């Protein structure tokens, strides 16, 4: 599953207009959800294990489909970036990932 690249991707947003006010949350926690913490840990672990490098990781997120990029949260992009690279490098396969996801989805109900 090779994610294509974009010329002049939406991630390069310095100077763009129209995003609205800067929304702030008082006393925000480091992680809003446990899955965010795990996402960060998995990505950093894969970097530490040299499964991919930081530049590839950033580029992986730059290749996220633009409308998803804009509506997703930071750790959702980290997650997609990590999954994409591990699939592309053959560390995990699409089939086994989907199978595991289906299993967990069924269990959740």
């Amino acid at each position, binding site marked *: 599953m090779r994610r294509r690249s974009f010329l002049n991707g939406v991630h390069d947003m310095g*100077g763009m207009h129209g995003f609205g006010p800067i929304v702030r949350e008082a006393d925000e926690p480091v992680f809003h959800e446990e899955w965010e913490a795990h996402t960060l840990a998995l990505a*950093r672990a894969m970097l530490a294990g040299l*499964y991919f490098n930081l*530049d590839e990781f950033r580029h992986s997120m730059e290749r996220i489909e633009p409308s998803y990029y804009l509506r997703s949260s930071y750790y959702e992009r980290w997650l997609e970036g990590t999954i994409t690279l591990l699939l592309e490098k053959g560390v995990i396969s699409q089939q086994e990932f989907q199978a595991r996801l289906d299993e967990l989805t069924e269990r959740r109900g």
Partner: protein
Amino acid sequence: MRTVDLEVVRSLYKLPGAVRMKLDVVPKFKPGDRVKARNIHTSGHTRLPRYARDKVGIIQLDHGVFHLPDARVSGQGDQPQHLYSVRFSARELWGAEAPCKDSINIDLWENYLDSV
């Protein structure tokens, strides 16, 4: 493919400044030089923001030698080169309406720059 255990995690980047390369590379530019950012359009990886393309700035600092991210992603090795902090006036980037005293500083690799 190594197992990422506690030891691997604890050894990760324990040294501050570990990303900078301890290599002797002759710099092309020095603080005070006027430079122009190249008009790089790529679907590969780059760290040149589009708002700086073709804009003229002044070298403020030489950060030392770093690998080039573009090259690492396209499989062209590290291409170690000097990284500079370049100051662009707000008016250069955003037009005559911008405050005259303001500026933005961007870190740019030698590959991203031409002399002016």
